[in-house]
């Protein structure tokens, strides 16, 4: 199906036409998979999310996708846009240069439920399976909060920014070929709570991520780091866990040579 829509009719704007090719899926239809093309009049600074909303509200109400905050905070609108995983609310039309059609497809490697909506449960189960929380055995309810030094926090600061969008895990070729692989999202969480000095149960996480479906399924490809909308050094976090597995967590000295270089923003 191909449809031409007028996204906005404001005067005096330099408008352009762009084609949006959206991968559709409906389990109740035959065939259940197809591609729809919509030609819209857009501006460079329109967000992909605005365009999806426009299409759903005014052209095709059956288009399915998830979104909530529209500000890159909730992590619900991760999808593959022009061949890369990103958040629809943080990607602009101008981010896909030229005049070529903009391909939009659901995240890969997980079951699709409808159109751009995938089943996130297997991904979230993976995160849960690494025990991503602080266990403080001696700490009693009502006591003051547990503290950690600024220096220790800086080691994990990067990883605390994760918004659980799963853009990383579903960009990973290792996950595409082995759906049991824990994947970068769970491994970032693992790294974050292994390196958290307040956690007394880090050994449990280490045991889990050292297993057959753990960090050594990672081939240092880096698709995950490229995909992360929060600019987290995902591959670096996984590499840090690999190091912990090889050197042991009690080895404080060697441990501290995990350097987190700052200010090196990706493009």
């Amino acid at each position, binding site marked *: 199906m191909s449809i031409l829509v007028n996204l906005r009719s404001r005067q005096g704007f330099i408008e352009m036409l762009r084609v949006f090719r959206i991968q559709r899926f409906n389990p109740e239809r035959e065939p259940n998979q197809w591609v729809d093309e919509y030609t819209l009049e857009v501006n460079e600074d329109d967000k992909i999310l605005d365009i999806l909303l426009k299409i759903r509200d005014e052209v095709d109400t059956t288009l399915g996708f998830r979104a909530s905050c529209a500000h890159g905070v909730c992590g619900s609108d991760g999808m593959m846009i022009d061949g*890369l995983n990103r958040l629809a609310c943080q990607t602009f039309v101008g981010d896909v240069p030229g005049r070529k059609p903009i391909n939009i497809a659901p995240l890969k490697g997980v079951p699709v439920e409808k159109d751009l909506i995938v089943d996130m449960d297997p991904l979230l189960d993976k995160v849960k399976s690494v025990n991503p929380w602080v266990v403080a055995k001696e700490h009693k309810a009502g006591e003051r909060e547990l503290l950690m030094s600024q220096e220790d926090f800086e080691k994990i600061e990067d990883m605390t920014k994760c918004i659980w969008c799963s853009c990383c895990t579903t960009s990973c070729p290792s996950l595409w070929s082995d759906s049991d692989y824990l994947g970068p999202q769970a491994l970032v969480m693992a790294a974050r709570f292994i390196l958290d000095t307040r956690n007394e149960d880090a050994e449990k996480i280490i045991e889990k991520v050292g297993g057959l479906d753990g960090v050594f399924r990672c081939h240092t*490809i880096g698709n995950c780091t490229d995909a992360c909308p929060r600019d987290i050094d995902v591959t670096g976090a996984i590499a*840090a866990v*690999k190091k912990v597995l090889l050197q042991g967590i009690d080895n404080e000295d060697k441990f501290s040579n995990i350097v*987190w*270089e700052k200010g*090196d923003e990706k493009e």
Partner: protein
Amino acid sequence: MRYSIKEGMLSWLLHRLTGIGIFIFLIIHVMGAIYLKIGPEEWNHHVELFNTPFFRVAEVGLMGAILWHGLNGLRIIIIDFSGIRTSHFAKFLFWIIVFLTILLMLPGTYILLKPLFEGVAG
């Protein structure tokens, strides 16, 4: 709709292809020693094969595969163990090894292909 192949994924695809390629080559290469058992004539004929234009060109490919695999292997080890933020650094190293692979292939390619142009081989 396909996922874009960027530096990281390309280097990994090449690494796997070259790894498997080198492995298959080594198996066949070592199996070649069986001619020693069959007889000296057969062994000599087998060794002569490597002097043919086809094998000389193929060996340029083999050299490229081994160089890529070795250099990219070192690149992966450096990324995993250096602790430097990965995205930019990994891409920078990718282009470094592309450059090194081509640079190191130049003298080998010259030596392997020179006889072809002098009409000595074949």
